[in-house]
């Protein structure tokens, strides 16, 4: 069980949230210019780090999406920040393995 701090509702049980996968995946500006492989990479390929992971959650109370920085080994949540914001200073998005 996780205690997640919604930026608006405060700390709540993880049953009150839904997971939304990896955060900060930008939709390509010109999808028609991409090869099938590049498009498939955007749609399906995700980093699967052991350690720090930036991910999206939605609060089922206030129905807002936000970002969470969670350690995939210990489940420790080190940061919570709103949509459109950048992760706090020291935290870097895990590099994608190609």
């Amino acid at each position: 069980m996780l205690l997640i701090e919604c930026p608006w509702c405060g700390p709540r049980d993880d049953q009150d949230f839904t997971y939304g996968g990896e955060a900060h995946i930008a939709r390509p500006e010109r999808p028609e210019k991409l090869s099938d492989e590049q498009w498939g990479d955007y749609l399906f390929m995700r980093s699967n780090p052991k350690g720090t992971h930036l991910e999206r959650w939605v609060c089922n109370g206030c129905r807002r999406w936000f970002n969470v920085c969670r350690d995939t080994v210990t489940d420790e949540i080190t940061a919570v920040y709103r949509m459109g914001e950048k992760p706090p200073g020291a935290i870097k998005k895990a590099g994608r393995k190609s």
Partner: protein
Amino acid sequence: MPEKYQWQSALATLGLEARALAPVAEPGVTLSERRVGTQLVIRGDAAEAEFAAGVSSVLGLDLPTEPKTAHRKGDRTLLWLGPDEWLAVVAGEGEDRLAVSLAEALVDLHHAIADVSHSRAVIGLEGPRAREVLMKGTNVDLHPRVFAEGSCVQAHLGRCHMLLHQLDAAPRYDIYVHRSFAVYAWSWLSDASREYGLSIASSGAVR
């Protein structure tokens, strides 16, 4: 939305008025149905001073911008649903023009108003053991330190969604559930209340 004469309480099948004729002495918990005239979902930007002023000029209530709080005056309640979303509840009838008045007050502003008057049923829960009853069915912290008079929260009650609003420290609560879950929520609450002594009160307007 049905015509007024077609409207029927979501709890009509339970015969609550008849059951309210035999109140229990010193009940730990009292349940009742709350009648609601109008419910509106209002959306807009709270940071826009004109939006907040427009809403409060029509409803006579300040817009609650603090998360999980509600403002209440007389028969009117304005509940925070999200950072840009509120539920206005007016108990009395004859408020058909409320949505129109709001739309007129907010005409040049970015906003949305939806009349959801019959979408939710409201169950009143009160009594010295009311908090214990809720604690059996929801995972939100209801300790008076963090959830007190004027607090509201969207959470689960048993297996259904609810909007919980605490009216005072007695404690008294109003529980908003979607209409099709009303009988389920009532059954769940009466089952959970039995051990404390349950009394059923006659239905009244949302306080």
